């Protein structure tokens, strides 16, 4: 299940829904990304998330499909928020259920790494000094590279 939305989500509810629609889950791993209050030593007052409607969903579908090909994925949920967010708000939720914990962990982390480097979202940070587009991080590219082996 993939959702792009402005409004906040209830991680507990998403966990329950994922668990309920999984057939025989032995392990459920969830990831939640939140807006940090500090970036590069500057206080963040807000963040704005832009995306490419249509391509975002397509990109996330492909990532999920790749995860399913590599690991035994029972159920999966990806939710990503767009629009203006405040510090400490939830940005993204990824949940994966599987028969086995290592598969659930790997698939969940793989989805996050690919989302970070493939899905067309862009973050703009607002600080007391104005706003700026967030630069893509090398560490995210490296994290995605790990899965090539």
């Amino acid at each position: 299940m993939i959702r792009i939305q402005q409004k906040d989500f209830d991680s507990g509810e998403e966990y329950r829904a994922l668990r309920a629609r999984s057939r025989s889950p032995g392990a459920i791993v969830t990831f939640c990304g939140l807006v940090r209050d500090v970036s590069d030593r500057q206080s963040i007052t807000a963040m704005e998330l832009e995306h490419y409607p249509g391509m975002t969903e397509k990109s996330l579908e492909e990532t999920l499909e790749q995860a399913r090909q590599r690991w035994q994925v029972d159920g999966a949920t990806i939710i990503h928020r767009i629009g203006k967010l405040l510090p400490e708000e939830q940005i993204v939720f990824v949940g994966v259920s599987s028969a086995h914990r290592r598969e659930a962990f790997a698939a969940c982390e793989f989805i996050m790494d690919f989302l970070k480097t493939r899905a067309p979202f862009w973050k703009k940070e607002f600080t007391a000094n104005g706003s700026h587009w967030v630069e893509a991080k090398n560490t995210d590219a490296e994290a995605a590279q790990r899965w090539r082996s």
Partner: protein
Amino acid sequence: MAIKIWYFARIKEALNCAQEQLELSDGEIVTVEDLIELLSQRGEIWKTNLHDEKLLIAVNQTVATMQTTIADQDEIAFFPPVTGG
């Protein structure tokens, strides 16, 4: 032929353009590279932003390259490296 172009994030702001429709005569452009050369004629800001080495291109919502060919009704997008999640 008619194509639709999307610009996102930093590029959208620099060009002050989020989306446009272009009507082109047949054979005027063949590849993404041709389209970029055409748009670059609009001025320095267009040229600089569309020649950024980190520029990413999508054709019909799939990542593309300079050599990807463009057809009638295609949707082309230009954007910087992604930073979601």
